[in-house]
């Protein structure tokens, strides 16, 4: 049995960089709010979106934040449900980060609506045949479960419920990510999306994105605290990341190879490899594959990885998975919908032939970045008011703790 001695504290901005960070995030949030207001006031014609590419960069940001929220819960799940003691000090931070990411993702999603002022209608009028409606319950329910989970972690008198609420949170995040993937998986009219494998693919994406964001946040908080992240923790997080990356690459390869095999989808699939989405598609996959190979080599040969290398691998994993998500969401809309198989469209006023194009506007970048900044701003606030930041005093590794 491993013994991890950890102390939970509120963040003390000993170097002052906490305040600088918070001010920078607040500024980005204000810019994001202004971008959202402008897009809502002027109309979506100022964005890069149109009636062919109806979901653009804000959706990529929103879905990334929602997926990362589910994945950020990895440490809490591993400690509470799978009793991995190495992750125990990080459970509280894991839950708080999940809440912050989800709130921000939902806000970006809402602010990109054509009528964000009708949020009350979205929250009170439901169509239960729509996976979108179910997701509203899944997202708000996830926040509620996480709040209760956090309470059990913070209050010693409630500690006995940690395992139960942790198991519920695990179940909830699986269903939530399945629901998010299914938003795209049920679209029969779009051959690049019409597949159930998007649900497990999105689960794998959430594991990678969540693990990467969590690792970067752990490093950031440790910097604020002035305490280095223990070497064993870095090694364990790297191993976890490796498994998540392998899962993501597996589902992505199966998704694309099966599409290539089925004649109905093969021509659209080939355009994914060579068409306008080829750059993000290949960039994403090659980056993830490169990180995998690199992590395997570090684990097998040297058995060690330093903090800089660890953070670099997380940034690369985050970038690669974001590219995959971008090519999935945007790429599927660039491919023309084939209404007339066996016929060539020679004329149309609505681009029925040829690829669509999409260039995200500055307003969309602003809204998306504002959402990311909001998650960090909320996190910074919670770290100042709640004792969730772990200060690991003496980590002692044990074979049973290792994720592998």
């Amino acid at each position, binding site marked *: 049995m491993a013994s991890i001695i950890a102390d939970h504290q509120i963040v003390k901005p000993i170097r002052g960089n906490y305040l600088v960070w918070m001010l920078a995030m607040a500024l980005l949030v204000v810019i994001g709010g202004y971008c959202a207001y402008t897009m809502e006031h002027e109309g979506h014609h100022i964005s890069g979106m149109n009636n062919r590419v109806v979901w653009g960069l804000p959706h990529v940001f929103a879905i990334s934040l929602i997926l990362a929220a589910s994945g950020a819960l990895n440490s809490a799940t591993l400690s509470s449900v799978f009793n991995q003691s190495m992750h125990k000090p990080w459970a509280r931070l894991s839950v708080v980060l999940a809440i912050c990411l989800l709130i921000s993702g939902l806000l970006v999603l809402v602010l990109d609506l054509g009528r964000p002022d009708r949020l009350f*209608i979205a929250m009170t009028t439901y169509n239960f045949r729509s996976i979108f409606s179910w997701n509203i319950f899944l997202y708000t329910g996830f926040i509620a479960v996480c709040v209760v989970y956090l309470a059990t972690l913070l209050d010693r008198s409630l500690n006995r419920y940690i395992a139960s609420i942790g198991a519920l949170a695990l179940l909830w995040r699986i269903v939530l990510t399945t629901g998010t993937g299914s938003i795209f998986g049920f679209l029969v009219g779009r051959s690049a999306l019409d597949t159930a494998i998007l649900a497990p693919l999105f689960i794998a994406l959430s594991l990678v994105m969540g693990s990467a964001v969590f690792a970067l946040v752990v490093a950031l908080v440790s910097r604020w605290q002035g305490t280095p992240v223990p070497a064993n923790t870095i090694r364990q997080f790297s191993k976890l990341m490796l498994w998540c990356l392998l899962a993501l690459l597996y589902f992505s390869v199966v998704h694309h190879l099966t599409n290539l095999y089925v004649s109905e989808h093969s021509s659209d699939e080939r355009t994914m490899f060579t068409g306008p989405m080829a750059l993000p598609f290949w960039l994403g996959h090659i980056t993830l594959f490169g990180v995998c190979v690199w992590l395997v080599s570090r684990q097998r040969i040297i058995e060690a990885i330093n903090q800089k290398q660890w953070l670099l691998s997380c940034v690369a994993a985050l970038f690669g998975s974001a590219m995959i998500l971008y090519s999935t969401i945007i790429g599927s809309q660039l491919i023309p919908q084939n209404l007339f198989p066996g016929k060539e469209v020679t004329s149309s006023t609505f681009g029925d032939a040829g690829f669509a194009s999409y260039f995200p506007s500055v307003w969309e970048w602003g809204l998306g970045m504002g959402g990311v900044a909001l998650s960090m701003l909320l996190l910074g606030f919670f770290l100042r008011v709640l004792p969730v930041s772990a200060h690991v005093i003496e980590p002692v590794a044990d074979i049973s703790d290792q994720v592998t």
Partner: protein
Amino acid sequence: MSRVPVADNEKSLQARRRFLQGLGLAGMASMSYSLLEVKAKTPASSDKRWGLLIETEKCSSGCDACVRGCNEEHGIDDAGDDLTRAQWIRKIDLKDELTGNETSLPVMCQHCESAPCVDVCPTGASFKRADGVVLVNKHTCIGCRYCMMACPYKARSFIHETLTEQKPSAPRGKGTVESCTLCVHRIDEEQDRQPACAVKCTEEAHSAITFGDLNDPDSSISQKLNTLGGSQIRADLQLNTGVRYQGL
């Protein structure tokens, strides 16, 4: 206690009587108006299934009469960027890859029986009436565009800019999604009234669009479908569309 003089009392009673008479008249007027309203707003019935038949052999390339008819009827501006402006109907020219045979046809909301847009709409703003017409409730559409992602026919338009001078029969607004309504305001007013696209097509001597009740075997659309046949766009999706095409 002071007594009210008789003359004043009489005046007061007369005023009260006039007030009550006025109230009664107003009540009767409002009741008759309500009855008229009820008559005009007969609910859609599942006895009918409204649909269109497009005879592609009569539809000529370069003609956009149906599009113009639709735009005029609903106050749709056809200027601006093709990718961001509303297009309830669009004309498409096709060439068969094997035979080289060329076809021209209008594509609009296909008014599917199993409409994917209705299934995915989170608030139920996209809905199907009992008579098969698929509509968007403009009061509950939140502008999420999920219906546009789900529509296999690209038949829906999101309003990207502020609109002015909308027509009362076609409530439209920025930030919401819209599509062909099959001119419900016309067919609800008078059962034999045709949608604007069909009227315009006939006016310009093409008569390529036939509107009618698919459930009525004696209707002209059913008769034509019986003799000419009619296929669906993306029939493989099994959505049972209300818009059928002859010669596709």
